[in-house]
């Protein structure tokens, strides 16, 4: 029930339209059920000479048109009424089609946008933990299930109900006994349909799953084409695919066979019903119990009714899916999002930063950052060193409030960052992630992403600083080259550099490089850092790195271990203290020794 409340809330703004669509079906049904009545009157009482046994309004209508004699001489009027009724039916069928489409598509649009927006505003952590494939599934096929429920299924159910009640009403008013006969098989057909589609659910699933298996074999063969060829397993792959291909064929054929049983048997029931109506009707008409026109009405209604009733089975069994989809969507929307308050500050940021006894844990019980304190002056470069998993990256994520620290205080220019508006903060604290994501746009658009209205010069300038300008110019289409999933594949180092350029374009007073030069070679790394330093207004910069050159050139170095700040100081201070930094620094000596050894001429002799 909660789920349908959610659906109702999604429908806001389109409810009237949707109700209008449902009402249109009703009206269209009225029109389509009236024309057999008109045919009946025409045949019985105008062409024939029976006394009119029809509702008052129809009798009135006949009188209004001039009574029987006039109509008999002008049969075209009856024809015109038929056309008019069809037009009315058509008009409302059109309204139904259009309105239900507009309503359901708008509702789907709302849901899609709501999901998209919501997913962009859930906390950072949500995306670290969630599974992309599953989320996409929910945002696409689950939304589509709801859309088709509104656009097709619910409308069809409405139509069937209108039809059934209209047909029952008219039939009962014409002849009760005939009605019973005409409705004899309907419940059986209906239950047969429902039971059948519940029973064959598994066959549908089998076929779908088998198709999935076939696709997997195909996909793996295509992506692993090198392995296949290198092991010369073409024949083996063909046999493997053949098994899946045949399995899919057989399972689907099995399903089709089941459907063949369903349609032929339900056809049998329907035809028997029609035959019964015809024979019983003919008998009753011959006994003057009903008129010929009434018989025509019954046979026509019967034919109109049976199809939607057979469809019902399928639709009702499918409806369970809608509930499931609604539930899956509401799970996403129930996740909390990052809040913005009105009294948050948006101060001018200069770049002095202070961490005071800051602690944070993904799980509050087990802190990943333990009471870290340090101070940075504007324009300084801070290098951060620490073993894998020591918390250095987490520490940096606290600054743009991608994670919220739990105790202590971080302040920028003396203001507690928890008082600063998050978006404002992030606009001023540029962070380049270790594995940056590039969007399916041109390189130029990717770089300009963070600064709406960035011009070509801005883009080029930051690309030059990031040492990627020449690489981009070397591409066939230069800056217009498409990157991301559907574009060219960039190497890890190229991606990182584009991401750096993208962050630089904003001119942030504070920059964080979260190991984002790891895939760039040492020389380029140095060039980029030099270029950064020579920019007119130096940003306060944090660099997480393992490279000696990078670390040694920083204004000071912080060493983090197991969430604690274990060492802090300038290069000169730290090489004098035993610790991680000293060990890293010592590698250079090792290298020299190693090289000395390798270049020794006597080794040459022994080897060659």
């Amino acid at each position, binding site marked *: 029930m909660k789920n349908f409340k959610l659906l109702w809330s999604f429908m806001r703004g389109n409810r009237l339209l949707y109700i209008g669509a449902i009402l249109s079906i009703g009206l269209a049904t009225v029109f389509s059920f009236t024309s057999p009545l008109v045919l009946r009157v025409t045949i019985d009482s105008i062409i024939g000479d029976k006394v009119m046994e029809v509702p008052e309004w129809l009798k009135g209508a006949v009188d209004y048109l001039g009574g029987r004699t006039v109509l008999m001489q002008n049969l075209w009027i009856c024809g015109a009424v038929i056309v008019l009724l069809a037009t009315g039916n058509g008009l409302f069928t059109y309204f139904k089609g*259009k309105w239900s489409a507009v309503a359901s598509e708008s509702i789907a649009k709302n849901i899609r946008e709501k*999901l998209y927006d919501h997913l*962009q505003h*859930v906390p950072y952590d949500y995306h670290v933990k969630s599974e992309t494939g599953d989320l*996409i599934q929910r945002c696409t096929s689950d939304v589509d299930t709801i859309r088709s429920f509104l656009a097709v299924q619910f409308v069809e159910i409405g139509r069937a109900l209108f039809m059934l009640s209209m047909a029952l009403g008219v039939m009962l008013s014409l002849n009760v006994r005939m009605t019973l006969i005409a409705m004899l098989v309907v419940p059986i057909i209906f239950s047969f349909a429902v039971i059948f589609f519940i029973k064959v659910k598994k066959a549908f699933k089998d076929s779908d799953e088998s198709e999935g298996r076939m696709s997997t074999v195909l996909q793996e063969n295509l992506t692993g084409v090198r392995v296949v060829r290198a092991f010369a397993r073409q024949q083996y792959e063909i046999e493997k695919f053949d098994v899946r291909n045949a399995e899919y064929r057989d399972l689907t054929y099995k399903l089709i066979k089941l459907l*063949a049983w369903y349609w032929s048997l339900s056809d049998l029931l329907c035809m028997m019903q029609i035959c019964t109506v015809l024979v019983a009707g003919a008998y009753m008409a011959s006994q003057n119990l009903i008129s010929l026109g009434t018989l025509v009405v019954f046979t026509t209604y019967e034919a109109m009714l049976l199809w939607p009733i057979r469809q019902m089975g399928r639709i009702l069994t499918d409806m369970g899916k809608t509930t499931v989809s609604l539930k899956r969507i509401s799970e996403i929307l129930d996740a909390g999002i990052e809040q913005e308050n009105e009294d948050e500050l948006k101060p001018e940021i200069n770049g002095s930063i202070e961490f005071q006894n800051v602690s944070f844990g993904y799980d509050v019980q087990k802190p990943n950052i333990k009471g870290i304190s340090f101070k940075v002056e504007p324009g300084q470069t801070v290098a951060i060193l620490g073993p894998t998993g020591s918390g250095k990256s987490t520490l940096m994520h606290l600054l743009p409030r991608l994670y919220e620290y739990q105790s202590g205080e971080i302040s920028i220019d003396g203001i507690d960052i928890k008082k600063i508006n998050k978006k404002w903060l992030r606009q001023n604290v540029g962070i380049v992630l270790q594995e940056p994501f590039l969007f399916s746009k041109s390189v130029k658009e990717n770089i300009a992403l963070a600064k709406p209205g960035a011009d070509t010069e801005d883009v080029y300038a930051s690309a030059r600083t990031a040492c990627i300008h020449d690489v981009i110019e070397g591409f066939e289409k230069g800056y217009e080259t498409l990157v991301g999933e559907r574009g060219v594949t960039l190497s890890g180092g190229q991606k990182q550099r584009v991401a750096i350029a993208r962050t630089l374009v904003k001119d942030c007073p504070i920059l964080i490089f979260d190991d984002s030069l790891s895939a760039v070679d040492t020389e380029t790394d140095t060039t980029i850092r030099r270029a950064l330093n020579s920019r007119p207004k130096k940003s306060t910069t944090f660099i997480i790195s393992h490279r000696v050159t990078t670390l040694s050139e920083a204004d000071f170095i912080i060493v983090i271990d197991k969430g604690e700040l274990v060492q802090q100081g300038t290069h000169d201070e730290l090489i004098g203290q035993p610790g991680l930094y000293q060990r890293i620094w010592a590698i250079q000596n090792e290298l020299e020794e190693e090289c000395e050894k390798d270049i020794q001429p006597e080794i040459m002799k022994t080897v060659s």
Partner: protein
Amino acid sequence: MNTLQEQEYSKKVDFGIWLKLLKYVKPYKRLMILLGFVMICVAGIDVAFPLMANYAIDNFVVTKSLDGVGVFIAKYAAMIAIQTVNVFLLISIAGKIDMGICYDIRKAGFKRLQELSFSYFDKTPVGWLMARMTSDTGRLADTIAWGLVDFVWGLTMMCGIAGVMLVRNWKLALLTLSVMPALAIVSVYFQQKILKAYRRVRKTNSKITGAFNEGISGAKTTKTLVREAKNLEEFQELTKEMRSSSVQAAVFSSIYLPIVLGLGSIGTAMALTFGGNSVMAGAISYGTLMLFVQYSIQFFEPVRELARIFAEFQSAQASAERILTMVETDPEIYDSVDVIGKYGDAFNPLVKNWPEVKGNISFKNVSFSYKDGEKVLENFNLDVKAGETIALVGETGSGKSTIVNLACRFYEPTKGEVLIDGVDYRKRSLLWLQSNLGYVLQAPHLFSGTIKDNIKYGRLGATDEEIMEAAKLVNAHEFIMKLDKVYDTEVGEGGNRLSTGEKQLISFARAILANPKIFVLDEATSSIDTETEQIIQTAIQKVLENRTSFIIAHRLSTIRSADRILVIRDGKITEQGNHYQLMRLKGYYYRLYTNQFMEEREISILKENA
């Protein structure tokens, strides 16, 4: 690449395509004839039902007698019985044809994909091929089988109805059918519009899926760039497009139906007016009038069906065209007729004629350029002795991979030749060379299935002992034994239930089992934990023993232990020799080595301290 995806296909009916498809339809000739026959029966009975009603009215209702009602019921029951059987037959036969053709085309397509050269895969995205093999094939087979059903039914039905009416009363028939041409034109017009509109919906829909994919995968980046609002704006462009194209498609359908209803009702009105007058004038019976009214209602159904099939055939033609382009692509690398005659082809190798591979490889004045004219190698010469380990180093795009691809005959030289044991490899079969090849990729590729299946891929006939032996040799045995179902553990799609390091080890075991004479390793740069790193290093050494090997190398230990290191730059060997020789040169290699040395040590220190 993208042009391939966006390519627009001709809209005109192209008989050439359908003629080519005959090959796939032929095996089902008998079934199709049978199906056609069944459909004629179905339509025939559908035409006959109103006739029965007509008979009942004229003979029982009008005359007020029930003479012969028993026979009538019996006849009606027989028709119902036949129709029930017909419906069953039609669905199962059409289903059989549908699934059969689908299966055959997929089979042919898959076979062709196993023959095509790498150059084809380099320029054709996997997604494109997947779409050809799945949805396009499905649509084509669907249209052929069910299109036939609807076509025969529609045509028979139309002819039947028109025929009966003309015989009964040709004047009234012509009047009733006078709306028919308009109906046909409107139907063809709208069905095409509708189909096109839905195609647009599908296209937009896949864009939306892409946008969601990007929005979700890039959510973290979006946050750091504060781009939420702008992203939503861009996304809204898509959802708007989606709504408008879906509504448009729905509106086309909703206009079409009323028009058909309206035109149909004019037919009915004609039948009623003129038929009614004739009844009053005593020219036709009540029953005949009813029959005409009934037929006028029934008539538009087949017209609509035929128009729909017409439109669907056009779209199926586009699918067929795309599938055929794939199936008809010739591989760029293939064995000559002579070679096939002697050594067999990829599917029927004549292994007994295969000479043994020793593993000497020479490049003689080899030039190579990609299709787009980009020159990679020019007059490249290299001699590799059997058993030698060659490490290739150099920057991305320097030509390292091309050299390896040429050695494996994944590509062939544009000029010059590659000799294996002194013979141009084009004089031997592809399968011969590739059967003696071991290949381990930077990003190891595993297939769904168990660990055992994956190792066995190296040698299909291997026993469990041999598989375990190979796993032990590369130190994979240990981690495998820790898994739930040991060697029978499922690795998941693409092996994604294992870590990269574990996948590497499995792929080494697979290569060991194949026991190739020539081994290629595209080494990963990706950092794995120190322990695994060492295990993998040992594994590599085991694999390299006694084989001619090419390594696109990144790890110092691999590079150092190579017999010969080649520094490749712009398709040329700029430095060559063993580690010590190259260190003395103090050139590119020296720089590369020292940088890499620092990098590896730094990272390993950070990992040790973790």
